[in-house]
């Protein structure tokens, strides 16, 4: 089983470890509410090294990546990042991908729901070797700094100009003489930065980021709390609804797809389903009761939907989730019942249901 290059450091910081798709990761450090507040109110550092990471030289990258991924890599300008996905031949999700155009290279980060060997096999079958792809998964750590004050942590690490980086952009900074590829991205709906660091300096970088996050009133977070934050902020989570529903269209991921591209892996199946028309759509739900995954949702006339994923939102002090509804009634603003026609109330809601503090911060305040 692969483990993170930061394992001993994370263990010393109090991490509880678990496994995701054959990779050992730090699941948590403290209770969920504490970790939640670290990100919503301060800054937190999370080890995302379970992510599969690759570097492709510019010369071989465009054809390789554009034939593989659903989005348009060729249109991704220098210094910018494309958020898209990798599907299988049936058009079902395999990995949530960031593709960064970083001068003479492209960086590919895959948060996948398959193990390393399976993903490597897919990439190899589609020309990874011919493209000159280099696997950075074992040699590099991926450290995520997220939170309302995350910008202050990266500003201290890399200097003031990092604050002006637009969302979904990449820049390389120096740390202890090593190049750190920094991608401004995240799925908590607060400020987020992903640092791709060689293993040789990743430990020191993590420690320094942790120290600075603690200085902002935050600290370390495990990967588990990110599931709740993604749901609350209505960021697609391949580990949750992605893994369960698999079809990008009912999940509303059409924005990740360039339908004008000639082809990409799974494109024929996705185009066919698009032409047939959607039968179901995932929408937000909210209840004062616990929303168990799989729980049925009823109107007065009968069962209409099932809960797919859920979490408790400390900000709302309510349970929020995603449920698969038939398209003809997949609308916010409806009052339904949970479990039976006479069960407790569950309402369909607009997502995201919270207003993150980071959205209100102006550049001149940073």
């Amino acid at each position, binding site marked *: 089983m692969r483990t993170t290059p930061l394992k001993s450091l994370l263990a010393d910081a109090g991490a509880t470890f678990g496994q995701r798709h054959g990779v050992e990761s730090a699941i948590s450090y403290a209770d969920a509410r504490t970790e939640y507040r670290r990100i919503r109110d301060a800054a937190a550092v999370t080890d995302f090294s379970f992510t599969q990471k690759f570097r492709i030289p510019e010369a071989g990258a465009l054809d390789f990546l554009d034939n593989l991924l659903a989005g348009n890599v060729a249109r991704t300008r220098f210094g910018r990042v494309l*958020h898209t996905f990798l599907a299988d031949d049936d058009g079902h999700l395999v990995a949530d991908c960031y593709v960064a155009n970083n001068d003479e290279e492209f960086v590919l980060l895959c948060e996948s729901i398959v193990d390393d060997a399976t993903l490597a096999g897919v990439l190899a079958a589609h020309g990874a070797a011919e493209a000159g792809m280099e696997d950075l998964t074992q040699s590099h750590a991926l450290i995520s700094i997220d939170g309302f004050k995350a910008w202050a942590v990266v500003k201290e690490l890399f200097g003031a100009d990092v604050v002006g980086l637009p*969302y*979904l952009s990449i820049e390389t900074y120096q740390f202890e003489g090593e190049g750190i590829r920094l991608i401004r991205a995240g799925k908590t709906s607060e400020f987020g930065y992903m640092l791709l660091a060689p293993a040789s300096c990743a430990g020191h970088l993590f420690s320094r980021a942790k120290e600075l996050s603690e200085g902002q009133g935050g600290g370390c977070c495990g990967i588990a709390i990110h599931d709740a934050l993604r749901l609350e902020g*209505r*960021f697609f989570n391949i580990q949750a609804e992605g893994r369960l529903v698999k079809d990008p269209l009912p999940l*509303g991921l*059409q*924005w990740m797809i*360039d*339908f*004008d591209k000639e082809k990409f892996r799974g494109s024929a199946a996705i185009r066919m389903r*698009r032409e047939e*028309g*959607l039968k179901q*759509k995932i*929408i*937000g739900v909210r209840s004062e009761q616990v929303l168990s995954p799989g729980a049925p949702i009823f*109107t*007065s*006339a*009968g069962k*209409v939907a099932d809960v797919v994923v859920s979490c408790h939102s400390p900000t709302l002090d309510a349970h929020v989730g995603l449920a698969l*509804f*038939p398209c*003809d*009634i997949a*609308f*916010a*603003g*409806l*009052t339904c019942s949970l479990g039976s026609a006479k069960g407790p109330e569950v309402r369909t809601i*607009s*997502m*995201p249901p919270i*207003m993150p503090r980071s*959205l*209100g911060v102006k550049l001149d305040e940073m």
Partner: protein
Amino acid sequence: MSPVSPEMQAIIDRRSSVINKFKEELIRRLNLPYTPQDLHEDVSLLGAGLGLDSLDALEIVLCVENCFGIKIPDENISVLRSINTIVDFVIQEQDAKGGAR
């Protein structure tokens, strides 16, 4: 057809009408390469998701004014998070004006 009461169907019909009108105008104004069915109502409009910028945000505000005669205040950025949050605002404003459609 899914089993719903007449009251629920009325809510659906009203919301659907606002959504469809807004989506068609948005796609036209911003020349988006999508059909209305492609645009999930919860997709983020600015930054993540559709990745629209501040100039596009002005177009969205004009889109709402053009479709519904409703102005989104400059300071109310939370309204622009998704199609659904915009539709919530439109319906709320319509109800405040006495249900004008």
